[in-house]
């Protein structure tokens, strides 16, 4: 019987070789595709059980992970959650990630390519892999000032450093507490999520960059003026038509000024004055003169239509191209020139327009992450400001800057004045729906001669002032608070 026993022993050996081959196939060859299978909750647990890096603002951790005794091992928590929610986003086992928790995930969980050395060190030392901390460009004082000044109104504030593009403040209201979504009890998280989802104020939406875009109203006149100045046909002191009402070409309707007022007794005024008092008819005509192509081109140079990541994705702002892209008719061009019709922008976009003007015509790419530090405090990433475009010449920038100073000095934006500091700005009051009060806008920068901060403010549907709302009355003081917080540093 020894011969068949030997044969069976060989068969048994073969069986084990098959098993060894099968485990090798699964654990080595197929491992990565199995690990990346979307149905593999293990990936989720590994991700959420990660000793995640902090998000830091002004030396303070606004999002951090602390060890806890449960299946995940770490709990994400947010200090000042509502204030920073548009930046941090949420980190939810049930609903995934948003904002920086999502777009800076590679740094925060330590998987980013730039952190390979840190991972190698962990591998050698046997330490648990740990994410890197992400330091933001946010100025806590400016952020808090914007938050306080907005009060309970729906809207958003964005502040940039025009020289670098660093985002100094980004507030969106209403906000939410990301701690509610970071819990590890599904039922509680689901309840909180449903409440936030059904909230008609859309607290989960970051209005500064990703909300429904807004009509910019008169703040868009900066773009129209820039296009005209770049055109070379006008300068700040050129007299332009400013009728009481503008008959729109190929249309029976007329364009009136705000409140039906008269811009100028003579029917003409300088471009600077037209911007100062925000004369609709003058800019409607100017837009028609410049033409929709030039307007569209100018808007594009300021960043309209561009995909932008700061690193969160920014909804591209839009200048209308007319039906099927065949261009605008005269009436549409006139309305677009004053930021109505189908012009739609994010607050960040309007801040970028001001930033280009403040920075001598050079527009810097906005960014939010200043530095990434590994757990050993090595700098794994350091922001390097880069130019986005040069939408206007230095001369145009200077001219526009002076005109914007006029707006705040004795125009529609006097509420943005800061004593001892020259402020430049532009107000906007944007009609959006027949039955709702207008959006109030302000964008500007300070100090005008050495810009340190650029702001854009939008308040939805009149905010506290209701139908009485104007950009100058409602948005300008908020911008002032934010600029003051930066300038008085």
């Amino acid at each position: 019987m020894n011969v068949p026993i030997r044969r069976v022993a060989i068969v048994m050996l073969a069986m084990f070789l098959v098993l060894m081959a099968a485990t090798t196939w699964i654990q080595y060859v197929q491992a990565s595709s199995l690990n990346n299978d979307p149905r593999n909750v293990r990936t989720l647990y590994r991700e959420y059980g990660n000793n995640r890096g902090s998000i830091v603002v002004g030396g303070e951790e606004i999002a951090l992970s602390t060890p806890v005794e449960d299946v995940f091992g770490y709990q994400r928590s947010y200090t000042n959650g509502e204030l920073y929610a548009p930046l941090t986003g949420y980190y939810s086992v049930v609903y995934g990630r948003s904002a920086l928790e999502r777009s800076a995930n590679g740094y925060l969980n330590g998987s980013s390519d730039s952190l390979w050395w840190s991972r190698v060190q962990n591998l050698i030392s046997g330490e648990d892999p740990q994410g890197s901390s992400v330091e933001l460009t946010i100025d806590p004082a400016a952020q808090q000032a914007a938050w306080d000044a907005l009060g309970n109104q729906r809207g958003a504030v964005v502040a940039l450093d025009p020289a670098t593009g660093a985002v100094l403040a980004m507030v969106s209201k209403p906000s939410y507490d990301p701690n509610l979504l970071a819990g590890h009890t599904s039922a509680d998280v689901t309840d909180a999520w449903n409440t936030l989802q059904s909230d008609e104020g859309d607290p989960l939406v970051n209005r500064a960059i990703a909300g429904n875009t807004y009509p910019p109203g008169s703040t868009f006149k900066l773009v129209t003026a820039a296009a005209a100045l770049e055109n070379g046909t006008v300068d700040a002191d050129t007299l332009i038509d400013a009728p009481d009402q503008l008959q729109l070409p190929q249309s029976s309707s007329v364009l009136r000024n705000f409140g039906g007022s008269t811009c100028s007794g003579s029917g003409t005024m300088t471009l600077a004055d037209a911007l100062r008092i925000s004369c609709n008819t003058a800019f409607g005509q100017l837009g028609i003169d410049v033409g929709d192509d030039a307007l569209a081109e100018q808007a594009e140079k300021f960043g309209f239509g561009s995909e932008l990541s700061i690193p969160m994705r920014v909804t591209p702002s839009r200048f209308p191209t007319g039906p099927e892209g065949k261009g605008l008719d005269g009436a549409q061009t006139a309305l677009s020139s004053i930021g109505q019709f189908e012009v739609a922008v994010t607050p960040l976009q309007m801040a970028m327009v001001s930033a280009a003007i403040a920075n001598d015509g050079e527009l810097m790419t906005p960014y939010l992450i200043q530095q990434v530090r590994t757990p050993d405090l090595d700098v794994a990433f350091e922001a390097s400001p880069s130019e986005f475009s040069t939408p206007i010449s230095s001369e145009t920038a200077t001219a526009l800057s002076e005109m914007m100073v006029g707006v705040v000095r004795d125009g529609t934006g006097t509420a943005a004045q800061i004593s001892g500091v020259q402020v430049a700005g532009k107000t906007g009051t944007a009609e959006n729906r027949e039955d709702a009060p207008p959006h109030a806008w302000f964008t500007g920068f300070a100090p005008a001669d050495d810009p340190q901060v650029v702001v854009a403010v939008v308040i939805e549907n009149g905010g506290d002032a209701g139908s009485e709302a104007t950009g100058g009355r409602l948005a300008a003081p908020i911008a002032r608070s934010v600029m003051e917080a930066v300038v008085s540093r």
Partner: protein
Amino acid sequence: MATVEPGRVRSGRSSEIGLLVLALALGIGAYALVGLSMEGRLPGNFYVLSGGMIALGSGMHLIIRWRAPFADPVILPIAVGLNGLGLAMIYRLDLANHLKGGDSELATKQLGWTALGMVAAVVVVWFLRDHRTLRRYTYTAMVVGLVLVALPLVPGLGQEINGARIWVGLGPATLQPAEFAKLVFAVFFAGYLVTNRDTLTLAGRKLLGMQLPRLRDLGPIIIVWLASLAILVFERDLGTSLLFFGMFVAMLYVATERISWVVIGLTLFGGGAIAAASSLAHVQGRFNGWLHAMDDEVFNKAFGGSGQLVRGLYGLANGGLFGTGWGEGRPDLVPYASSDFIVTSLGEELGLTGLLAILAMYLLFVERGMRIAIGTRDGFGKLLAGGIAFVVAWQVFVVVGGVTRVIPLTGLTMPFLAYGGSSLLANWIIVALMLRISDNARRPTPLPLRGGAREPEHDDDDTDDAVPAVRGDSPSDDETQVVRSVDVHDAGNPGSARRNPGTGTTETEIIGTVDR
């Protein structure tokens, strides 16, 4: 013929204690690492349990030293090592369960079963002085086996868990009688085949180069086949059915050396399995879950889908080459992580490296079993040792093959590793049988002493074991056949196997002469 000095045969006991230290270190080290990794400290009862494990292992070693001094030195350390690894993983899964708010104490229970299993093994080694005694119970074993297999079908006694009716409730404990049936069937097959091997081998016509058996000789194989199919149909247990039938076919082949039996066996089982797969929903589900495991529809099926299998694959993939380390993976995400899927749990935390090492331990274990079968001098011992070694290998293949998608998933447990009292108990008895047979096999042969044997007894042996000698099998085999055939009848007689106090060896009385 030269006289064999008893002292020249290495007992292997010092190798055994050395390997045992390694095996205990493996299990206890794993236990310590689980505690350190998951709770930052040694498990609360670390010293007590480790001490217990050491006491059990070394106690068993001492018993072997005394009662089976020539037993194979590798069997016990491997069983202890695997058992320890399983315990550590079950404890680790208990801790994961506690994190989720559970209070499972499977490791404590498993430790109890381990102790019971090792005690049972000691009892077998102690009281079963000669494995050939078992041959007397050939047909008793068949009846006991069939009763054990049928037990879960008894109303009130049998319990159905997760669709399979293979458990028996005994007070607070549930037992899987099939695990024990595996053992008694091995005894039955060995006894039956060693008696009937010649009829099965020689009678019958040739067809296509294969020796076909006579129809009337097919009786027992048909019975076993029907029993296997009955398990499949009535108890819905594909694994056990596969296990018994595989063991029978392998032993049949060893006994007869006829490939025709393997072909007939595989055809019968294959036919039965295909018929079952096409008509029984649960078998169909298993096949479907195997063939289309990654399909969304199959994966998401609430019952009978491939969710568990694929989750196990995710676990293995997560382990990768070197594993996550004890306590660092998430094996608890796989259902039945401590029993049916303990292989993926270990694969996740120990990686491919660890899993291959574990498979190598099993391979060593079963190949040692085959070595014992070759070394044993009696046909019954050969068949029994070969049969139980094969059944362990086959069970490992069915379990690991099931979780790695080599074959459809079945509900068998991994010997020594998986949580489950019945399985542990049965496998420790397998260890005991292997130790006993190997002790008999490796004990210095009394054959050269035949002339000097004391108190020669008259041999009235009339069994047919001597037939292979006529047939002209390998000489050593024949020789032993004859000698063993004598011993079978005297095995129960205290006089037939006597301990020689002076040498520590046992002399077997040789009766009659070897007629060649």
